[in-house]
């Protein structure tokens, strides 16, 4: 008797071939099982309760028993006074962080991999990794010490060259730059770790072969390092696009103040003030779903583009 392996016949139906393929991968499904269980229970479980976005939630009636109100709460967000400003601010801050932060992290990782001064490499690597651990509350203090018009280092320095102090933290003209700059400062070294890991996984024989062929270091970076990191870069970009409407709540919340609301009030800070502080759970849930839908659309579109252009994507 032949084993099925030896008999991959076209006669077999699609179903039985599928069953066979599944059976062949049974160990892999077993490995996947705990992970899938986690996603079903701890990720989809709470999502079930987000139906309160479309309900007048009453704890006494419970999530399931509360009456439906349709799109009332999401419309409340769309029709709110500052809606278009919130969307614009969120997108500008979020995109700026992506556009400035991502390339810099990649460049830093390449610099780490390329430098021949080991001491410089390890010290810069360690130092740039540290800011990630400062909470934004602490960062608010650090930024005040640097940029305050009364005793900030930067303004003192500008005073030496006869420049009037600038209220970087309360002037709408500078505040977005402060947000983006401080985020890039804080997170670039940390993000570079991932790209460095990608560089370390590139087969060194590729570099050797290129060197033999007389490629310059620029050429090696361009033709070996970057393509080697490409799938990670695409992955991270796609995921960042999926979260495009998360412009960094904790950061903005710790740093913003009334004079700069016009450029820094974002969706999440609005939800905090309207939904959380005023205990409107349904509004918070509705906006959360809205953000998810936008993220989903962006990821699907961007994934298509990425597969066409870069030949790699999320799925």
């Amino acid at each position, binding site marked *: 008797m032949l084993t099925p392996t030896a008999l991959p016949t076209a006669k077999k139906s699609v179903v039985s071939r599928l069953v066979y393929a599944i059976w062949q*991968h049974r*160990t*892999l499904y077993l*490995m*996947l099982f*705990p992970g*899938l269980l*986690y*996603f079903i*229970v*701890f990720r989809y479980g*709470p*999502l*079930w309760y987000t139906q309160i976005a479309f309900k007048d939630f009453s704890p006494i009636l419970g*999530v399931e028993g509360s009456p439906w109100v349709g799109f009332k709460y999401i419309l409340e967000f769309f029709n709110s006074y500052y809606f278009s400003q919130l969307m614009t601010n969120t997108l500008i801050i979020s995109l700026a962080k992506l556009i400035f932060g991502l390339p810099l992290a990649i460049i830093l990782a390449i*610099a780490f991999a*390329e*430098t*021949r001064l080991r001491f*410089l490499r390890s010290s*810069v690597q*360690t130092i*740039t990794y*540290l*800011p990630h*651990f*400062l909470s934004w509350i*602490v960062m608010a*203090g*650090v930024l005040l010490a*640097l940029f305050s018009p009364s005793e900030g*280092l930067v303004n003192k320095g500008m005073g030496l060259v006869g420049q009037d102090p600038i209220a970087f933290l309360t002037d709408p003209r500078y505040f977005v730059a402060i947000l983006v700059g401080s985020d890039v*400062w804080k997170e670039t070294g940390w993000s570079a770790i991932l790209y*460095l*890991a*990608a560089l*370390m*996984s*590139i*087969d*060194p*024989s590729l*570099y050797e072969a290129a*060197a033999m062929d007389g490629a*310059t*270091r620029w050429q090696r970076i361009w033709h070996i390092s970057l393509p080697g990191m490409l*799938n*990670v870069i695409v*992955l*991270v970009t796609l*995921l960042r696009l*999926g*979260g495009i409407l998360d412009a960094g709540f904790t950061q903005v919340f710790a740093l913003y103040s009334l004079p700069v609301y016009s450029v820094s009030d974002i969706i999440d800070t609005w939800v905090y003030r309207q939904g959380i502080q005023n205990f409107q759970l349904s509004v*918070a*849930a509705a906006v*959360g779903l809205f953000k*998810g839908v936008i993220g*989903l659309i962006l990821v699907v579109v961007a994934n298509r583009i990425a597969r066409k252009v870069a030949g790699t994507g*999320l*799925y």
Partner: protein
Amino acid sequence: MVKSFGSRGDKVFDFGLNFFLILVLIVTIVPLSYVVIISLKPLVMPNQATPLVSFGAYIELLAQPSFLRAALNSFVLLVGGVTLNMVLTTLSAFALSRKSLPGRGVILAFILFTFLFNAGLIPQFLLIKNLGLLDSLPSVVLPGAISVYNLLIMIAFLQNLPESLGEAARIDGASEFQVLWYVMLPLSKPILLTVGLFYAVNNWNEFFLPILFLSDKDLMPLPVVLRDILSSLNSAEYVDGNRQATIAPPDAIKMAAVVLTTLPMLMVYPWIQSHFTKGVLLGGVKE
């Protein structure tokens, strides 16, 4: 590796590179040193000479009765959390990195969906409560057991490894678990360390879940306890007349708290760095 020292273009390249790194170093170190300098600020004592630096802020924090217990809590959460994170993530990533797995696309989409749609705190609370997990340590580590971001990164890296390696082992009769353990994991050290570090830092910094899911203040981890200590330094609301004065200025204590919470993560980093060297893959491929 062939190195072409001496060529002029190379020298310029090296100079530019190192200049860039030194610039990054300076830009990063100036604000950071501010944190350390403030943490060493001495308390000005009337009618006494003030020392230049003082470790009073660190002593003040370490002497808090809740500090050690909180550090221990954090450590337990860290070790338990990262173990759970890594086991679940590695197993799932290994399975999902196999392109031939039937239903892989659907499962990936199913997982990706949860990355985009975040339920928020209250729904999470309802779930944890209905599962009967409130006031237990698992309630803090389970909700974040797998990060979609880290999972996808690990899948991407495993997919980058040559498929032939696993195939060869399977033909030799190795089980999937053996392929994972003996072939794939040794080859993916940089990414395992990276993802492990990401998880470790997440667990270490976890702040809101313990507050939301645990009632017993004795179970709170370090970030929560430090924040509580800090918030009592300068307040009128909760404090009666003659509380004992601290031995350091409040802003020094604040910054010392930052340094103390960062220290453990700082100590593991050089160890991780030492594994970030080229040629990890080389041995595996040549075998």
